């Protein structure tokens, strides 16, 4: 919403309020000023000049040399290429050392060797028009030479741009903003009386109106003006319209737009001679009904829209746009003005369905005050008279099926003070409310009809607070019930996982949670896999962001791809990412996956080490890994399942080279995907102190020869199976395949450590366990001691 500040003077005294104060005060009272523009501030040293002579340029066919009288001792010489200059023309002249809108500086110079002391200006150069002009602006002959162009053209107009919130349609009008301004500065506010000199005829002899759907049209006010002369509207009106971003058309149309700006009430003007039966009917549109709107576009209406029609055909879409068939044109002589109130939802749906959000529909869809219609239409008639544009016919058609009771609320000053944490006196509250046109009497607040947003104490409290000043509300600390803050177990685990994986050298990522369904193919998820069942967005930005992910692998791969493409030599990343799993109910199950990914940072065992460290740091020690050969996304020989409590709860391994290739990562990629819920059920921060050993440990190293295909995990299972109380620990320290052992065999070496809490172990005790282990290794794995 744009407000030319000079327009405020119609309703209040604005003396002494400068632009900066206005901006600050209105913003702080709730009408956000986004900026104040005054293009004339950029115009300096531009005056009215008169061209005394026009001579051809000696060296350029398209240039001419002019002598221009600018109110100084001698004329100045200006070279121009403009085609429309002539001797005697009065024009704007930007002199040497002048400025124009857009920060343009004009200084003297030479054009093809001839001195030019400035520039003659076109409308766009002066910022009056947005369109590129074809020539210099020619001013009336009697314009005083040497006068400041800003004064001559009345350009000195500051226009404030407001961001008006959707609850305040009343502020989508000059009067509404003036009321706010007056209330903010605590100055008197009044709307000039509207006087209409109607003739002795009756409107009922000219036109009639019928509302067939009163639930969608709560009021329709019409007045007729006869003997209309269509002409351009006066310059002052055009300037105000332009400042508000509206193009002038003719006096009748301009008046409707002017009223819409001034009162926030959309208006329409019908050429009554083109309204069949001179009858206006408000009704539901028929499905598929055709209408050409004012913008000359053919439209097809829907049953949910409100149509304005005559006795034969539709002549407008209510609240959105009128029809071309009853449009006011050059030869219009009989006009009917409409100021009506249409249902906000119906207008909004209609505008949306037609794909045309107009200024009128934007107002109606916020819900307007039906009481405003009468003043708006009378003001339009007053302007018709003032402009000499026609003769107002006596009488008014006013159909008002939806008149609302004025809302009355209890006046609760103490409650409001308690709610706000303020102590404003009752008198001051009343005074503030009065400034906003609320009446307070006998403990009751009478809410003005244009404030449909005021429904209860909290709303009134806001009115008081914003005018009193939010900045005057003190800052206090909450009293009341004590609450113990903190993180729950899940949130603490998230922190612990982040700490562990950062320590392990991985960087945390944040990736989009919607993906392209094609990514399922890219990571080789089988067609029948349950992860193919996804939550689908019905209005996605594009196919690439159209389904909610059920797996984190492609999210990891996309980040690795980005880093690989950008020639980062190595990348290690992780994310505790949410996946969205449809489960046959209204909402999907949202669960988290701890995803890790890396290239250039080692091999499978580096990744596995990070997983093991993570598990132990969150208190999970009873874990195992088993080969996983059937996950199509991973290398079948380099992939393991993480086993907790006998269940596979994660996968880690080298991403299948085909997948890495699809993502164009030319390095071995390792990823892990661990089920967060499973980690959560094992997560503990409990630790139990164990006495430091008092007796020495005995260590034994063994090397066994076995089939190369046997995983060392099998050996460890056998060692663990002994359940020996004196076995303190064991560690793999060598795996050898090569010349020293037979083909198809490998040598595996372990170091075992034995210790008892209460004594030094004897060789016999240790040997007994070792022998048992070796025997089992031989029996179960055919392992030979080397």
């Amino acid at each position, binding site marked *: 919403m744009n407000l030319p500040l000079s327009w405020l003077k119609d309703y209040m005294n604005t003396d002494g309020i400068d632009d900066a104060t206005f901006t600050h005060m209105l913003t702080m009272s709730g009408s956000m000023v986004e900026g104040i523009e005054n293009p004339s501030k950029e115009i300096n040293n531009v005056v009215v000049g008169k061209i005394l002579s026009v001579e051809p340029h000696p060296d350029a066919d398209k240039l001419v040399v002019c002598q221009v009288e600018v109110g100084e001792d001698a004329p100045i010489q200006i070279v121009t290429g403009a085609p429309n200059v002539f001797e005697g023309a009065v024009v704007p002249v930007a002199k040497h050392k002048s400025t124009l809108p857009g920060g343009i500086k004009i200084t003297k110079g030479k054009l093809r060797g001839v001195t030019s002391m400035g520039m003659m200006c076109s409308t766009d150069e002066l910022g009056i028009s947005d369109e590129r002009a074809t020539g210099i602006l020619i001013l009336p002959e009697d314009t005083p030479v040497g006068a400041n162009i800003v004064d001559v053209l009345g350009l000195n107009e500051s226009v404030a741009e407001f961001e008006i919130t959707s609850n305040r349609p009343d502020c989508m009008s000059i009067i509404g903003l003036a009321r706010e301004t007056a209330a903010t500065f605590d100055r008197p506010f009044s709307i000039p009386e509207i006087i209409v000199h109607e003739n002795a005829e009756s409107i009922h002899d000219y036109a009639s109106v019928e509302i067939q759907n009163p639930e969608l049209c709560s009021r329709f006010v019409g007045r007729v003006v006869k003997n209309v002369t269509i002409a351009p509207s006066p310059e002052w009106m055009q300037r105000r319209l332009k400042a508000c971003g509206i193009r002038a058309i003719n006096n009748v149309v301009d008046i409707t737009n002017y009223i819409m700006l001034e009162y926030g009430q959309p208006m329409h003007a019908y050429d009554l001679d083109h309204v069949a039966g001179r009858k206006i009917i408000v009704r539901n549109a028929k499905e598929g009904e055709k209408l050409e709107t004012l913008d000359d576009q053919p439209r097809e209406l829907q049953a949910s829209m409100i149509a304005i029609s005559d006795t034969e055909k539709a002549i407008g879409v209510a609240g959105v746009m009128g029809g071309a068939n009853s449009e006011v044109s050059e030869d219009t002589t009989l006009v009917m003005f409409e100021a009506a109130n249409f249902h906000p939802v119906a207008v909004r749906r209609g505008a949306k369905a037609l794909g045309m959000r107009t200024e009128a529909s934007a107002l109606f869809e916020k819900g307007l005050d039906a009481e405003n219609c009468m003043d708006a239409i009378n003001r339009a008639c007053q302007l018709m008279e003032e402009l000499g544009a026609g003769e107002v016919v006596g009488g008014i058609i006013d159909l008002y099926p939806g008149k609302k009771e004025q809302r009355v609320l209890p006046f609760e000053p103490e409650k409001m003070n308690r709610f706000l944490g303020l102590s404003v006196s009752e008198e001051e509250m009343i005074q503030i409310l009065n400034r906003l046109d609320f009446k307070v009497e006998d403990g009751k607040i009478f809410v003005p009809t244009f404030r449909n947003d005021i429904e209860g104490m*909290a709303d009134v409290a806001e009115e008081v607070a914003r005018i009193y000043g939010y900045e005057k509300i003190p*800052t206090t600390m909450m009293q009341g019930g004590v609450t113990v803050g*903190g993180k*729950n177990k899940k949130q603490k685990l998230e922190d612990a996982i982040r700490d562990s994986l950062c320590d392990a050298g991985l960087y945390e990522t944040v990736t989009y949670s919607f993906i392209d369904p094609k990514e399922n193919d890219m990571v080789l998820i089988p067609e029948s896999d349950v992860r193919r069942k996804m939550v689908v967005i019905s209005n996605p930005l594009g196919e690439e962001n159209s389904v909610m992910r059920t797996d984190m692998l492609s999210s990891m791969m996309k980040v690795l791809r*980005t880093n690989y493409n950008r020639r980062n030599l190595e990348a290690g990343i992780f994310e505790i990412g949410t996946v*969205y799993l449809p489960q046959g109910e*209204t909402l999907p199950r949202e669960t988290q996956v701890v995803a890790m990914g890396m290239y250039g940072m080692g091999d499978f065992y580096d990744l596995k080490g990070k997983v093991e460290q993570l598990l132990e740091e969150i208190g999970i020690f009873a874990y195992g890994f088993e080969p996983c050969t059937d996950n199509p996304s991973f290398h079948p020989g380099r992939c393991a399942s993480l086993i907790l409590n006998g269940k596979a709860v994660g996968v880690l391994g080298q991403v299948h080279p085909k997948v890495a290739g699809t993502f164009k990562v030319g390095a071995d990629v390792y990823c892990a995907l661990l089920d967060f819920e499973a980690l959560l059920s094992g997560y503990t921060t409990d630790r139990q102190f164990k006495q430091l050993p008092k007796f020495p440990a005995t260590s034994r190293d063994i090397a066994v020869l076995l089939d190369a295909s046997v995983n060392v995990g099998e050996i460890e299972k056998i060692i663990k199976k002994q359940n020996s109380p004196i076995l303190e620990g064991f560690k793999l320290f060598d795996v050898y395949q090569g010349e020293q052992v037979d083909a198809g065999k490998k040598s595996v070496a372990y170091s075992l450590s034995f210790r008892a809490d209460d004594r030094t172990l004897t060789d016999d005790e240790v040997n007994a366990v070792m022998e048992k282990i070796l025997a089992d290794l031989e029996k179960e794995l055919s392992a030979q001691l080397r």
Partner: protein
Amino acid sequence: MQEQLTAIREAATGALNQAETLAALEELRIQYLGKKGELTAVMKGMGQLSPEERPLVGQLANQVRSEIETALDEKKNALEAEAANAKILNETIDVTMPGKRSGKGKKHPLTTVLDDLKDIFTGMGFTIAEGPEVELDYYNFEALNIPKDHPARDTQDTFYIDENVVLRSQTSPVQVRTMEQQKPPIRVIAPGRVYRSDAVDATHSPVFHQVEGLVVDKGITMADLKGTLEVFVKKLYGEETRLRFRPHHFPFTEPSAEVDISCFNCGGEGCRICKGEGWIEILGCGMVHPRVLSGCGIDPEEYSGFAFGIGLERITMFRYGIDDLRLYFENDIRFLEQF
């Protein structure tokens, strides 16, 4: 014999002074003091001496032995000190060579700033609430006083799954879910992902993060809202930061406000970052709308509350001077390692 002893003393002292290594010194000890050493050999001849001579020579012999021992010790200490010094000198390294690192990764900058927020609010007695991202239309809109056909629900803003299910466009639905499950006193923050149908550019992303805050109790005032947010802002941006509460409108709070902070870059003078205004908008807030409270079964006559919503990407941008939202989601390691 006395001459022999003095001769040994002379020779030993001289040799000791010449010795340059600990090994040479040990050889000299064996030569003079060892079981087969010179002094021992002389002592062995003491039996042949007269009883008168024996104590005199014995005394001299002990004296010589003691002197040689002392000299040996002194020399040994000196040589050891010399060797230690030489070793230290040999161990000199180039301390200007780079240090060795353990190769740590880092948390995402959004997480780091969110962690700060969590610390600040948990310290004020808040717990952390969570809610689904694929959310019922009811929680995302209707229960927040945004009925069907409210302009805020335009499909160009919100991603829909179907008529009743959306990708939540704000974290505010967690307010409603919390109030349905928990009776006052309530103090929660609810950080999380939200979704809006905005094309990607430097300041827009279809996925971003909000941190919702909600307090409901008896006697909660708008002054409490101001006080709580002032504590938060000053802890996050520094004690000298000033706040400005500006009236605004949200359907689910009344009164509502937007909060600006004095520009961290220019301190309020006006600069490029604050677009010359001296103020930067960082959050929206207000008193929980009575209709929202009663919709959750909380009597607005008895209880009041406030709520706020912070854009995590925005406050993180200001914290680190990040100028493009896309960087957060690209996850280039060279970006992530800076924080």
